C-alpha cells in the first residue's frame, strides 16, 4: 500500500520514502513525526511515500531494510537511512540536511 502525499510539481527538492510495519506503535509514531516535520520545514518542497512492508515484503530485500521503521532520504544529496520512530527531531533534521532556522 503506497501512500503518496502532496506531489509538489515535477521536480521536488525532497524525496522521502518511509517504510513502516503496519500499525505498530513505532510505525504510527514515525508516520506522525515525518508528516509533522515535512509540514513544518518542507512545505511544498517534498514528496513522501509511505510503504507498509507487510503488504510488500519483497521491497524489504530490495530496499535493504533491517530496522523498522526506516526513512530513506533519496534526494537531495546522499541517500541516508533513518532508523527509528523519528522522535529525535534534531537528528532527523540533521540527517535530512534541514536547518531549523529556515522556518
Amino acid at each position: 500500500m503506497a501512500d503518496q502525499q502532496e506531489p509538489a510539481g515535477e521536480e521536488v527538492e525532497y524525496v522521502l520514502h518511509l517504510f513502516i510495519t503496519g500499525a505498530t506503535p513505532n510505525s504510527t509514531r514515525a508516520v506522525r513525526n515525518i508528516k509533522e516535520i515535512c509540514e513544518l520545514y518542507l512545505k511544498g518542497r517534498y514528496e513522501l511515500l509511505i510503504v507498509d512492508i507487510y503488504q510488500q515484503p519483497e521491497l524489504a530485500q530490495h530496499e535493504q531494510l533491517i530496522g523498522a521503521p526506516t526513512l530513506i532520504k533519496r534526494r537531495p544529496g546522499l541517500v541516508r537511512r533513518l532508523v527509528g520512530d523519528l522522535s529525535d527531531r534534531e537528528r532527523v533534521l540533521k540527517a535530512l540536511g534541514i536547518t531549523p532556522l529556515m522556518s
Partner: protein
Amino acid sequence: MQDNPTSPSTGSSAALPKLPKAPSGIDGLDEITEGGLPLGRPTLVCGSAGCGKTLMGIEFLVRGIQDYNEPGVLMTFEETAAELAANVTSLGFDLPGLQAEGKLRLDHVHVDRSEIEETGEYDLEGLFIRLGHAIDSIGAKRVVLDTIEALFSGFPNQGVLRSEIRRLFHWLKDKGVTTVITAERGEGTLTRQGLEEYVSDCVILLDNRVIDQITTRRLRIVKYRGSTHGTNEYPYLITEDGISVLPVTSLQLNHAVSNDIVSSGIPALDEMFGRRGFYQGSSVLITGTAGTAKTTLAATFAAEVCRTGRRCLFLAFEESPQQLVRNMHSVNIELASYVANGLLRIEAARPTLNGLERHLVTIHKIIGDYKPDAVIIDPISNLISVGNLSEVKSMLIRLIDFLKVNNITALFTSLVSGRNIQQEMTEEGVSSLVDTWISVRDLEGIGERNRGLSILKSRGMSHSNKVREFLVTDQGIQLLDVVIGPAGIVTGAGRLTQQLHEQAQTLAAQQEQERKDRELERRRRVLEATIGNLRTEFESVEEELRQINDEELARQKTLAHNKAQFAQPLPLQSEKPPRAL
C-alpha cells in the same frame, strides 16, 4: 500367530520418539551428531577467522537442496551474493543455478554504520520480513544466517539488538526451519557478542590450530540439547568437495569380514600361515629395522595382487614411483607392466607435503576413485614427521577402519629403531590394530648380518613360530629352509658351516653304508661259494651212496636169482626118446 497385532515385541520396540534431526549432508558431521542438526531449531556454528563457518553453512544448504530436497535461504551479512557464489564455485556448488531453480534464496543484508541514523525507537522487523518473505517464497526448510553479529557494527543500540536477535531465533523456531547461525569466536567466549546465550540447542565450535607449523582444523560439538553426540575434537578438512569431518568412516567396529585368502606373493611365506596367506580385507604390518627389505616384501605382495588381476594402490612415502619400479626390477619384481595396464597405482608423496588429515583425505579420495583391492603404505613410520604419536595413531586407526569396512587388504611397513632392543613395539602403536604382524630383522652374527623373518601374530589362523632366514636374490625374495644347529637355528655363514658339516657327515655315513654293503656282498659270496662246495660234496657223497646202494641191490638180486635157480627141481624129462643125437 504371525499376524498377532499385540505382540509384546512390537510394543517394546516402539521406543520414545527421538529428537528429530535434519541431516546436514556434510561428510562425517552427521555421524558425530548422530543424525544431523536439530530439526527446526537454530544451531550456532562459531569459530575464528578462516575456519570455514560460512562454507559449512553453505554446504548445509546445498546438501539439503541436493540430497534432501529441502529448499534453503542464505542470509549473508558480510559477503554479497555474487561474492559467495564465486567463492563456492570451486567446490562445485552452483548457487546461481539453485537460485534459478527456486530452491535457494540469497539475501545480502548490507549493514553500513555510516548510512544508518538512529532517530528513535525501532525494531528489526525489516529483517524479519525479509527473511520471512524469503522463506515463504520458496518454502524453505533450512536457513543460514552468516555472521548475524555484523548487525552489532551497524546498530549502536545493543539493548534493542539483543532482544531482537533473541526474538529472531524464537521466531525461526516457531517457523520450524532448521537454522545455522555463524558467529565469530570471541575472547574467552564462544562468540564475540555472546550469541550462545540465545542459541541453546546446538553449538558447534570450529577451531584452526597451528602446531609445529602444520595447521589442523578441528570441530567440536560444545552442546547438543536433547541428544547424545561425539564429544571429542574431530579434525576436519576443506576439500574440493566441501567440508569433510573425520572420522569419515564408521566409529564402530562392526564391519563384515571376508574368509578369502590372498597370497603374500612368496610361497614359502604363505606356508608359514595356517591358511596359506592373509585374509582379504585384513591389515598386515611389516616392521623392521633399516634395510631389512620391507619395501621389497611389500612390492612382492603388490606384484602378487596384480598378477591375480586385482588392483593395488601403493602409497610410497620414501621413493618416487620410477625409483620404486627400478629398484624392484633389480630383484625381478616387475611392476612396470602392472603400472602400464592400470592394475597398480603408485602414489608417491613426501609426508611433510601435507598435514596428516590431508593425507588421510587424499588417501580416501584415491581409494574412492581407484577402488583397489589392496593398499600398501610404505612406510607409516614416516608420517610421524608431520604429527605427534597420538595423531598418527588416530589417523591410522581411522585409515585401517576405513580399509576394513571396504574390505581392502592393507599392508603397512614400519621402520623400527635399531637401538630399540624391544622391537615388538612400533612407534605408532598400531601393532594392536593390525591383524597380521610380520617382523623382519637383522640377525647379526659373527661379522655378518642376515635377514630373518618371523610372524609375531596372525589373527584367525595358525602360524609358524620359526624365524626364517630369507635372501633377496635376483629372483626375488627366497625363504631358506630352517637349519638347526647345536645351539638353535643358524643363519648365514653359520648356516653354511652347518650345511658343510652336515654334508660331510652325510658323506661319511654314506661311505660307511657302502662299505657295509660291500662287506655283506663279500660275505654273501663267500657263503655262497661254501654252499656250492658243500652241495658238490653232498652230491658226490649222494652219488657214491646211490652207487653202493645200486650195487647192493644188484648183488642181492643176483643172489636171489641164483638161489631160486638152485632150489628149482630139475625139469621133468619126457618119455619120448630123444632124437638121435
